[in-house]
């Protein structure tokens, strides 16, 4: 069998061709390495295209007061100080350069009057900070990266006579396993979705850039690809996940019609003046401003309205609170019976902006509602509700190199890596995260490969990996993968959703264990050629891991923070702030351990007003970090 196996040798294999994966590929290739880019979809279709609002970078093009320190502060506040401070620091410092280099590669962002890259307001960001192209920034980013890859390939073609000699894209390939020899990464194994045939990459370094895991939930803005593959691969390779209880429910997903339920309604709608009201017509967000944000957000409509034209002298409208706050507020309104006919709230931009401006600033939103819901957002309000959008938790990595801890040769960047966003991600910080840490993962892999060299795959590993792929076809079982997936989504949504309780989480853990047992009996019909039932079997296995990690971490964290809300522990706890939940897979179940979060350095600590930190930290921490000197 192994003589028919399609095998390749590369320096680096990158799993995932979204923003992070492609940025890593560029970095690795420019450093002279050979790179395989492997993705489940066609090249250029990654979920990055769905990002609408923009990429956050403190370039200061619109407001000169902006700089990396302000961005860092906003990011930490948004994440409720659970962020890995080093990642947040690197991110804030490097984001502007990453955006500018996109422009050198051909990206065409919207412009300011002076001809610089324009920046827009977004929830949680103190200044207009998001570089954007209308509301299709993600598409611009993915296309630019894709074209950058092509440019590098063309150069290889001119220099070496073969464009695909050093970078090759393997589209529609699923990776099922990270191969290891002698405790280090040796490659990756998977199959071609097109024909089911197996494929093996031998490489000393593998970068995970697989994105999110939203498909674990029923209502999600994620596409079918968001099945937590990178998370699962890291776990199975002996790595760990960090803070898997934190899922971001984006406050505004479509709620009607059912077939598009969950589809994202960009935050730019609110950034550009959209207002949230309940069925009684009340602009309810004023009732939900948490104490920690009271001095930054307007408490009356007049001031909030003035902010759109005069941001220096007014506080921001509460519609622009961080996403977790807005999502919980909407959830409460709906639960209190003040929701719309289809179980959402109203988001209205039609009374705020003229029709032509709406169509110019929010073109894809206009299309999305017009074509899928029959709603003209220049004339009427949208109905929106929370949708599972982003997982803050992810592979536990070294901040500077993106190396997955405990798995030499494995790296992770983007949504599948954890730590950067703490308990809640700010809008716009995702695209910048992809670029900053995609590049760093590429660099990390380059360093690693240079000092470690090849690590050949043994036949034994190949046979074992092949057997796992063959398994579902040999299974006489009668479980239907689609039905199991549906049940898992219901369980995750109902029991591990926006609001959680001890009892429900325990129930979820039991149900997930039951589903895992049943998943062993999945029988697949049809052949290997492009067989979606077969594909789902592997995705399902990954999502079961995600759900289990999320439920178990959520059960342990007895507080409410960011993307984790416990009805039985509704307050933020300064002691829990010091804790990361680290999950490990032992082959049959997930174990969760607590680790102390790294402390802010004195320099970074000094960026904050001490009174602000008092809201988050214990008095011990405060006196220690102050170190007596400042």
């Amino acid at each position, binding site marked *: 069998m192994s003589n028919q196996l399609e095998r390749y040798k590369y320096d680096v294999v990158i799993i995932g061709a979204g923003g992070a994966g492609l940025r890593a590929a560029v970095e690795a290739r420019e450093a002279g390495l050979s790179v395989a880019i492997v993705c489940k*979809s066609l090249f250029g*279709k990654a979920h990055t295209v769905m990002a609408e609002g923009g990429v956050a970078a403190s370039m200061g093009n619109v407001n000169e007061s902006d700089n990396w320190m302000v961005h860092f502060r906003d990011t930490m506040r948004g994440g409720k100080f659970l962020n890995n401070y080093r990642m947040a620091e690197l991110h804030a410092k490097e984001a502007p350069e990453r955006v*500018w280099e996109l422009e050198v590669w051909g990206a065409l962002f919207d412009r300011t009057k002076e001809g610089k890259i324009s920046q827009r307001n977004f929830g949680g960001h103190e200044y207009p900070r998001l570089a954007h192209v209308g509301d299709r920034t993600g598409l611009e980013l993915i296309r630019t990266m894709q074209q950058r890859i092509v440019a590098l390939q063309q150069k290889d073609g001119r220099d070496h006579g073969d464009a695909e000699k050093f970078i090759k894209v393997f589209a529609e390939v699923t990776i099922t396993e990270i191969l290891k020899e002698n405790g280090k990464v040796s490659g990756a194994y998977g199959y071609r979705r097109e*024909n089911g045939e197996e494929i093996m990459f031998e490489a000393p370094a593998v970068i995970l850039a697989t994105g999110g895991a939203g498909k674990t939930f029923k209502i999600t803005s994620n*596409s079918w690809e968001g099945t937590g593959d990178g998370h699962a691969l890291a776990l199975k390779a002996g790595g760990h996940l960090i803070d898997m209880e934190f899922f971001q429910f984006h406050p505004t997903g479509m709620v009607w019609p059912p077939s598009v339920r969950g589809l994202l309604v960009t935050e730019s709608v609110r950034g550009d003046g959209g207002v949230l009201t309940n069925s009684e017509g009340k602009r309810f967000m004023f009732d939900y401003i948490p104490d920690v944000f009271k001095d930054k957000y307007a408490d009356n409509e007049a001031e909030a309205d003035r902010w759109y034209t005069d941001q220096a002298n007014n506080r921001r409208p509460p519609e622009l609170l961080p996403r977790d706050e807005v999502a919980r507020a909407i959830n409460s309104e709906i639960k209190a019976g003040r929701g719309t006919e289809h179980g959402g709230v109203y988001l209205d931009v039609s009374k705020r902006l003229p029709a032509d401006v709406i169509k110019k600033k929010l073109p894809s939103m206009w299309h999305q509602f017009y074509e*899928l819901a029959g709603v003209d957002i220049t004339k009427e309000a949208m109905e929106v509700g929370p949708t599972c959008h982003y997982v803050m938790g992810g592979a536990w990595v070294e901040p500077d190199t993106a190396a997955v801890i405990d798995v030499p040769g494995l790296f992770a960047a983007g949504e599948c890596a954890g730590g950067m966003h703490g308990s809640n991600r700010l809008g716009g910080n995702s695209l910048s995260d992809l670029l900053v840490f995609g590049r760093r993962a590429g660099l990390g892999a380059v360093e690693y490969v240079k000092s470690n060299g090849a690590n050949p795959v043994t036949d034994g590993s190949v046979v074992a990996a092949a057997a796992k792929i063959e398994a579902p076809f040999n299974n006489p079982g009668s479980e239907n993968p*689609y039905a199991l997936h549906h049940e898992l989504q219901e369980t995750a949504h109902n029991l591990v959703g926006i609001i959680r309780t001890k009892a429900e989480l325990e129930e979820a853990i039991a149900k997930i264990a039951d589903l895992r047992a049943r998943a062993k009996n999945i029988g697949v019909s049809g*052949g290997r*050629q492009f067989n979606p039932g077969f594909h789902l079997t592997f995705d399902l296995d990954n999502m079961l891991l995600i759900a289990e990690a999320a439920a178990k971490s959520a059960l342990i964290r007895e507080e409410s923070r960011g993307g984790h809300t416990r009805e039985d522990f509704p307050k933020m706890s300064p002691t829990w702030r010091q804790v990361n939940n680290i999950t490990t897979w032992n082959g049959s179940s997930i174990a969760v351990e607590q680790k102390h979060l790294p402390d802010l350095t004195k320099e970074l600590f000094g960026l904050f007003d001490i009174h602000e930190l008092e809201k988050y930290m214990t008095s011990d921490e405060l006196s220690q970090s102050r170190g007596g000197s400042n």
Partner: protein
Amino acid sequence: MARTMKLRIFRGNSKDGGLQDVSVEANEGEVILDVIHRVQAEQIGDLAVRWNCKAGKCGSCSVEINGKPRLACMTQVASFDEAETVTITPLRAFPVIKDLVTDVSFNYKKAMEVRAYEPPADLKPGEARMQQIDVERSQEFRKCIECFLCQNTCHVIRDHEENKKSFAGPRFFIRLAELDMHPLDTLRNRKQSAQEEHGLGMCNITKCCTEVCPEHIRITDNAIIPMKERVVDVKYDPLRWLGSVIRKREGIN
């Protein structure tokens, strides 16, 4: 408000296949991709369809519905009569892999043939200055989601396999136009190469690409025809040619 929908779906691969009749439930507000998924989940587990975002943003689920190239995720069930049998086939300009999935590698090959953006050599990151009005034309073309419906409907290759060698197709004509209109691109032979290498002259502007574009990019009016006119400027207009010779001699430009 469920209804029954009658479908005829292509089942098969590059060697064999045909249309198969299926009856499936459809709910209010659903799109064709929803009912295909229901067929997949309940009746034909291995029915192959390519899809991704299900929001008209990634351009994966391109198929032909009642003979028209469309995105399955943006085609409402409600736009068809209940009595009607709706035919769903794979794209017919490309080789089929299985069922509704086609081999679109032609397009990636063509993408590789278009020379990348070439910024001024001394342009430092962060120093680019461009006016909004100067980037807007190219921005329209960058809306392209690469669904390849334009490529699929273009008769130059759909009806003439042999033209695939020498014809890049509408998707790459807008790419060429994007670059030729880019305020900072320094490659000056894009017009010539559009005509000589990418087959712009094969296009007879019958506008089917524009008709099927789900992003409503005005491919023909805003990209192909302007490129044809630019080609005339450098290749077929003796007066402009004379003008450029004189300008060169006088040291203008």
